[in-house]
């Protein structure tokens, strides 16, 4: 699992640590350079001071007087420990050590004439500044040990790095708390979602939301709404279906009980006949319920193809029992249309069944070109639909006053829904003098 929080924490802590390391390295380098500069300046300063003291005769150097036997003068230096590490030697130009500071090494600090140089004396590396004083015939050398310099730099860097390292865990804790707080709207959302029962599809509150989460919450609420709509549709469908199935079941049970109880041969036989017809009718109702559910759910994306719809009409008519003699398909070249064969067949089958059950005469099917559409007309010679019932005739489960024994009130609803899925329409009209004309209009191929 990827967690935004732990990823954020890792990134923040790693990058902060890295920046911190860079800062420490930078400070180390620049401190070192600065300390070197300061120490070099000190060396120069010290050498010049000794030189000027010599020139003003503030320091008397016995050996300088020309007496070779006299030992080199040792002068005292005072101050803190670093200061004492500064060593000074005064050499005559002819190569005699004429004076030196306390603790200064015996060996010559540098061979260089003047300016800065580095040399190894007595196993120690020294940085030395030398001034030549031709007037006095001496060379003043002031040096300090590189090891001391390094210690000094190290101490400065340590003073900076130790608090920095100590601060790091604290910084990590601050980052952790901030990330947690920053993510808390997400946590709250997750909590309110996970504590919901499956049936609770109320939208999440979308006020006071951070702008990063708001789009997700709005999308989620949109999804909730759509799921709710689908569920409502299914719920009402299930309620309708249960209701519609109970009546034929009650009829079947009643007829069965009549058949069991009756000793009268005719009553007995009639009941059994009714049961047989009732089972046919109920299974057709179930098939239609499933068809309607499938069409309404829109599980299948229509696969539109361009062809003549007449072939589908022929195929559907061929599949219907007893339709052969009664369904007449009008000849002539049929215009080409765009349709989904499965949906068109479903729509046509229900229209044909409807026409066949509500009339005894022939059922006429024809196709003709209309404006931008192809119209398939199914005409029967039945009683038609009373004008006041026409608008409701395609409602599911609507059965008019003149209902037949085998109708379910679903056929026209399925036909309408199926043709609507192909961007078509279903129009019902009464014919003169009698009969119903159902017109399926589907997009034409231009």
């Amino acid at each position, binding site marked *: 699992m990827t967690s935004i929080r732990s990823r954020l924490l890792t990134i923040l802590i790693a990058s902060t640590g890295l920046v911190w390391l860079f800062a420490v390295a930078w400070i180390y380098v620049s401190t070192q350079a600065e300390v070197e500069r300061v120490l070099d300046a000190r060396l120069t300063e010290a050498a010049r001071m000794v030189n000027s003291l010599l020139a003003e005769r503030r320091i008397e150097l016995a050996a300088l007087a020309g007496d070779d036997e006299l030992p080199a003068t040792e002068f005292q230096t005072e101050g803190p420990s670093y200061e004492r590490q500064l060593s000074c030697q005064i050499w005559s130009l002819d190569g005699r050590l004429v004076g030196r500071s306390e603790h200064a090494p015996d060996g010559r600090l540098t061979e260089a004439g003047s300016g800065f140089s580095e040399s190894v004396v007595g196993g120690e590396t020294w940085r030395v500044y030398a001034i030549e004083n031709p007037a006095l015939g001496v060379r003043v050398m002031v040096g300090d040990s590189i090891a001391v310099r390094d210690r000094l730099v190290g101490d400065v860097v340590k003073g900076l790095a130790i608090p920095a390292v100590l601060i790091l865990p604290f910084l990590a804790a601050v980052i952790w708390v901030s990330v947690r707080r920053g993510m808390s709207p997400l946590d709250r959302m997750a909590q309110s979602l996970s504590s919901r029962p499956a049936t609770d599809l109320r939208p999440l509150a979308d006020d006071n939301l951070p702008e990063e989460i708001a789009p997700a919450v709005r999308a989620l609420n949109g999804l909730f709404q759509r799921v709710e709509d689908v569920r409502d549709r299914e719920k009402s469908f299930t309620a309708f279906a249960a209701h519609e199935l109970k009546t034929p079941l*009650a009829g079947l049970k009643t007829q069965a009980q009549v058949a069991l109880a009756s000793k009268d041969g005719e*009553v007995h036989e009639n009941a059994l006949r009714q049961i047989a017809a*009732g089972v046919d009718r109920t299974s057709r109702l179930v098939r239609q319920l499933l068809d309607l559910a499938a069409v309404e759910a829109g599980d299948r994306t229509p696969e539109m193809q361009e062809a003549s719809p007449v072939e589908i009409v022929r195929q559907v008519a061929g599949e219907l029992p007893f339709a052969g003699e009664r369904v007449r398909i009008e000849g002539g070249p049929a215009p080409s249309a765009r349709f989904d064969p499965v949906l068109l067949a479903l729509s046509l089958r229900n229209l044909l069944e409807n026409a066949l059950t509500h009339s005894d005469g022939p059922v006429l099917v024809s196709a003709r070109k209309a404006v931008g559409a192809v119209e398939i007309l199914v005409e029967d010679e039945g009683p038609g639909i009373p004008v006041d019932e026409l608008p409701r005739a395609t409602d599911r489960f609507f059965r008019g006053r003149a209902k037949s024994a085998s109708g379910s009130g679903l056929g026209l609803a399925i036909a309408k829904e199926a043709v609507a899925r192909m961007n078509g329409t279903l129009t019902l009209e009464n014919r003169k003098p009698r009969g119903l004309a159902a017109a399926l209009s589907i997009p034409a191929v231009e």
Partner: protein
Amino acid sequence: MRILVVEDDPMLLDGLSAGLGLAGFTVDAVATCEDGFAALQAHSYGAVVLDLMLPDGSGLDVLAFLRRRKDATPVVLLTARDQVEDRIAGLDAGADDYVGKPFDLDELAARVRAAARRGAGQASGELTWRGVVLDPARQTVSLEGEPVSLTRREFGVLRTLMERPGATVSKAMLEETLYGWQEEVESNAVEVHIHNLRSKLGSGFIRTVRGLGYRLAEERA
């Protein structure tokens, strides 16, 4: 007992006509509210079995029509929508009982009988008169404990008389309770049934009230 059944499903209506007929009722069957109104205006029924969802309205409209006319005919509602709220709505509208689809035919017949009995103010289902016991539920009659075999129509005549002990029942009313619409009434049928009943239950059990009809005799002749 003559009852009216209002149900729009043809198979169920046919089954109810046959089944309730077997249970001893004389059944008038209609499929719409409109026909229901007409039937209720033309005849008086022992009970009405009423479907709620009808093509031209709700069975509750028919019920309201009855109750507006202060007609207390017992009504048993029949519906596929047997949620508690629907039952409450139906009973509050003045129905006497409520049966959810699919139902048991015998249970429906028993409920219709019970509703009719309550309507007539009887506590027990059995009718008793001078040693004759008539059980409408089992459609049996006994005389001094001995079973008596009766035809359906003889049973109907006896039942109508025993439901109104001491009252005179006209021949027309007897015919009405015996025959539904579709049935042809034979002119002397009632006389034939009365004659048969007398031979089975004793000649003095039913008295003829000349010009008015028949009633049960108070004492043995």
